């Protein structure tokens, strides 16, 4: 099977991961314990793109803004639309990142890192290493959160606790 075929066949993994992150950010505060005392927070901000596909058509809904996000985006989930891209904010300690994450490839778009403290003129190498650290850290954290999602999906509690809670969350969004 080619990479593209595999990506298409299992596209739901990334889409559902984004929904799970969104659900956690709105119901549980978006906090995660990475172990060793490292805690991070992740929340959705500003923009969510959802898409549905049928026989010969593709419909895309882009929700922006606080109120629109809750009403329209949650409603769209019930209409069989899937989250395909979301702008998220990630905080670890004093550092903040914002970026858009796409569900198909899990690519990072327009990643804004914390401000680099090193001066390029004085020490270009120091600037390079600081930037690398600030680029790699959100990637590592997102991989960790993805592994948490997989653990949740494989857990017996998924069907009895997590999934019903997500269904309720969507229902509440529609009625709000």
């Amino acid at each position: 099977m080619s990479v593209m075929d595999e990506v298409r066949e299992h596209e739901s993994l990334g889409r559902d991961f984004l929904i799970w992150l969104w659900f956690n950010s709105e119901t549980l505060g978006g906090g995660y314990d990475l172990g060793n005392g490292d805690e991070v927070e992740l929340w959705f901000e500003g923009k969510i793109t959802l898409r549905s596909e049928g026989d010969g058509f593709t419909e895309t809904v882009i929700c922006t803004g606080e109120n629109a996000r809750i009403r329209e985006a949650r409603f769209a989930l019930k209409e069989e639309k899937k989250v395909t891209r979301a702008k998220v904010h990630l905080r670890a300690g004093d550092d903040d990142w914002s970026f858009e994450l796409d569900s198909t490839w899990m690519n990072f778009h327009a990643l804004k890192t914390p401000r680099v403290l090193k001066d390029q003129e004085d020490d270009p190498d120091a600037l390079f290493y600081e930037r690398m650290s600030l680029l790699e850290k959100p990637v590592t954290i997102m991989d960790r959160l993805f592994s948490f999602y997989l653990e949740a999906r494989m857990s017996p509690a998924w069907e009895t606790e997590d999934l019903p809670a997500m269904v309720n969350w969507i229902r509440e969004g529609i009625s709000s």
Partner: protein
Amino acid sequence: MGFIRGSATFSRYRVTGGLPDDYAEAFPKGILRYAFRNLDGLPGEERSTGWVNILDMFDSTFLAMEYFKDPYLALSWRVDVKKIPARALRQYCLEAESEVMRREELEYLPKSRRDDIKESVRLKLLNRAIPQSNVYDVIWNLQTGDLLFGGTSNKLCDEFVEIFRNTFDRLPIPVYPYAQARHLFEMAKQDPAVVSDIKPLVFVEEAPA
């Protein structure tokens, strides 16, 4: 914009299989072989791609092998394209054809002659065209095998994979949710096949009977 400054957009890859023993000699040779060549030195070419210094897109000589930044290998992939507007090409061709017909007192030009004129006009306009440059940063962590590429379009990524493989004799494997999930299961010594059993979430409620 890119990995060094500004906001970053990137796709992810994993390079498996470790490094060859002679990588410190082999990689520089590959990088120089596929280093960027300016279109000014490539008459008739509309597109040129190759490696440049991540801190200086005009440097493709790598005299100090600046790309080795332990444990990273850091480069930029530069893509220069010259474009001739179709309308301009058509107008200049018509003008050149009229000139030939007038000079040679011809009533019409055969297709082969028109094709020759078109190619000649194309080359002339190409020499006058200013290339549009795009630079895509590449960071390869040689210790972990993680690779970030500063482009996301499928076509661009396919081309990047090809030049990377040609340069380093290593195939970068794209990281996407399914592949990453399998990788995580393998790392945890669990059966990665179970990833295929994870069903898509469905939130559509059944209509009441």
